[in-house]
């Protein structure tokens, strides 16, 4: 994406009719399901408040809880690795692959692995990676990145998916989701049995028990984490809850906000690798469990005005609710995390420099904050990042020049009145030339953006001040 700008990607997205169909279908469906699911929860607002408190508390004592979590994972026989950044995390995972002589990897959904571009690293090393989450598999086969954090292939219609998988996986052609899923399932079953290593994400790490909670709907997470001989779980440093009780609160809002389910089809609680059950005497699970805890910029926002973004539980509700995301989809953002949460996370964690547009890709309508299960004030942080961008001189020249001028005028009432008169005069002259009944249908740059999609109404001949003064 070197020379491709945010605006180029937006243009592509807005011109893509299939994308419009796919986004409209899915975001509106998920939005409706979410409302129904929350309505099924007695005192949903109270549960959301509690979920927020749990997140706030955890983030405020993150180092302590991480230490407790890591100690408990080790106590149960797992291994814990801390990675400072994506490169570090890749190095750890690839070394594990060498250590265990891994030829094939099956993966469950993991956004952290997207941050790492892990599939690419494995390919370089000659290891075959199979994505086992259907949405992830679709984007993998298409050679793309996920365009939504919980629905990676949301940008495709079912018709496109049928065609793509017929072509890439050589399954019979169908546009019926149930039929497509059936064929993919047969293929995946073989992969689960063959793979040497399973890689998953982590929805929550429970500090008091060292348990990994993995929430999914396809059973692929369970197979990925239990069938291969080595399980590697990738998690961001913030993905911690203190106790199992806290986990139960988070689970009440996670699936409801994400997919409109009361609970996802599979909620896996994984504690340690294979060992004999004390009750049945049987042993199950992988021979080895490695938990890789990845920072990759997160600790940088701890204690700052952006720390609240670490409360995020990756439900994706803000994407579905965002009128900007609904129009442009995820790829236009150009970042691993799209939508409102991505517009904070990406410049917040990666630095504002290359991502200065993202906080501006919002009308500040507040729909994201309204749907967030933990009530993250995303608009506040978008504004904070706009402020940072402005301070660093990343705004367009006309904004940089225009605003101080506007301030100069707007703090001097007489000048302000004069400026309005002058603008009105100019606008009327221009409108007269355009002959559009007083309306402007073409404004000069930098305001030309306005008249690309809407006319500008006539300025009043007499301002309110004048009319009010002369009314009696």
């Amino acid at each position: 994406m070197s020379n491709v700008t945010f605006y180029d990607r937006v243009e592509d997205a807005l011109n893509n009719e299939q994308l419009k169909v796919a986004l409209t279908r899915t975001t509106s469906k998920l939005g409706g399901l979410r409302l129904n699911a929350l309505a099924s929860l007695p005192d949903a607002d109270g549960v959301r408040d509690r979920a927020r408190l749990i997140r706030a508390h955890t983030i405020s004592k993150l180092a302590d809880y991480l230490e407790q979590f890591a100690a408990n994972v080790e106590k149960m026989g797992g291994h814990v690795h801390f990675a400072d950044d994506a490169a570090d995390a890749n190095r750890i995972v690839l070394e594990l692959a060498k250590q265990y002589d891994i030829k094939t990897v099956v993966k469950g959904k993991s956004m952290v692995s997207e941050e790492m571009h892990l599939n690419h690293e494995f390919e370089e090393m000659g290891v075959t990676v199979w994505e086992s989450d259907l949405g992830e598999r679709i984007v993998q086969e298409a050679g793309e990145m996920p365009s939504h954090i919980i629905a990676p292939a949301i940008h495709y219609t079912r018709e496109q998916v049928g065609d793509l998988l017929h072509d890439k996986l050589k399954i019979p052609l169908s546009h019926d989701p149930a039929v497509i899923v059936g064929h993919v399932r047969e293929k995946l079953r073989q992969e689960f049995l063959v793979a040497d290593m399973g890689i998953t994400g982590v929805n929550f790490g429970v500090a008091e028990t060292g348990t990994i909670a993995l929430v999914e709907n396809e059973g692929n997470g369970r197979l990925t984490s239990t069938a291969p001989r080595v399980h590697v779980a990738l998690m961001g440093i913030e993905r911690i809850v203190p106790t199992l009780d806290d986990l139960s609160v988070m689970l009440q809002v996670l699936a409801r906000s994400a997919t409109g389910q009361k609970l996802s089809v599979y909620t896996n609680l994984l504690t340690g690798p294979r060992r004999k059950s004390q009750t049945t005497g049987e042993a199950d699970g992988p021979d080895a469990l490695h938990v890789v805890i990845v920072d990759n910029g997160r600790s940088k926002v701890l204690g700052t005005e952006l720390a609240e973004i670490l409360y995020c539980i990756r439900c994706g509700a803000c994407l579905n609710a965002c009128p900007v995301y609904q129009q442009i989809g995820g790829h236009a953002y150009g970042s691993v995390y799209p939508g409102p949460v991505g517009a904070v996370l990406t410049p917040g964690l990666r630095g504002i420099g290359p991502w200065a547009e993202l906080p501006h890709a919002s009308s500040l309508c507040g729909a994201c904050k309204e749907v967030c299960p933990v009530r993250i004030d995303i608009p506040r942080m978008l504004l904070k990042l706009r402020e940072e961008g402005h301070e660093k001189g990343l705004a367009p020249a006309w904004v940089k020049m225009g605003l101080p001028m506007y301030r100069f005028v707007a703090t001097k009432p007489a000048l302000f009145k004069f400026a309005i008169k002058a603008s009105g005069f100019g606008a009327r002259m221009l409108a007269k030339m355009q002959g559009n009944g007083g309306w402007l249908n073409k404004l000069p740059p930098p305001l030309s953006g306005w008249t690309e999609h809407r006319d500008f109404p006539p300025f009043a001949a007499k301002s309110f001040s004048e009319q009010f003064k002369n009314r009696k």
Partner: protein
Amino acid sequence: MAQASSHASAKPAEKPKSVQLFVTCMIEAIKPEVGMAVVTVLERLGVQIEFATDQTCCGQPAFNAGAVPDARAMARHTLDVLSRSASPIVTPSGSCADMLVHHYPAILAADAHYGPLAEQIAARTYEFSQFLVDVLGVTQIGDVALSASKTATASQKVTYHPSCHLLRGLKVTEAPKKLLNETAGVEMLEMNGATECCGFGGLFAVKMSDISGAMLNRKLDNIEATGASTVVGCDVSCLLHMGGGLHRRGAAIETKHLAEILAQK
């Protein structure tokens, strides 16, 4: 689900006899008739209007652009103007009210003089419909001084667009609908996706014009589908945006501020 709007201010013990009008720069320059309608409605309800002629702009365009020092300068000016009188402040814009009520205290928090002043002003600032319903307790528009509207015979089909900062910033959900529903001669039509943003977002409509335009088109489709002849809102900026889009489409649908509907005879 009638929900009380969240507001820093408590309801004044007595109904105020006079208010300060913060008219907004958009109304001052482009839609003065909205300001005049606000004056008409409030005076019919027996409220005197104070209007400080040195008011300018609340500074939200600068604030939203990230130019916080510029926004602060405009906020300080506005606070100086509005703190000369102890009367409640009424502004016919959810967005400007949200700026005064929520963002002024935040951006001036570290300012020893203007920080507390911002809190005081926030506590007595109201959006127009919020003031009518929550402070004046006007629900029976016809029974109070607006009886003139009862004589209207022709049914005017309207649909209501709740602007984002009014709805999700100030949490004013019911007041405008209540007022419209009780205005004689007005028929309210429900809009699909009513609470979706129209795509205005200030400079967003200029800087990210294509995204904004796509959002606008979806909103306009929903407006046209209602069959209403008028879109009513409580923010002139959003109304200008939708109105500009409707004009571009050649749609025979007009945009009106709530005050204009309440003021009509």
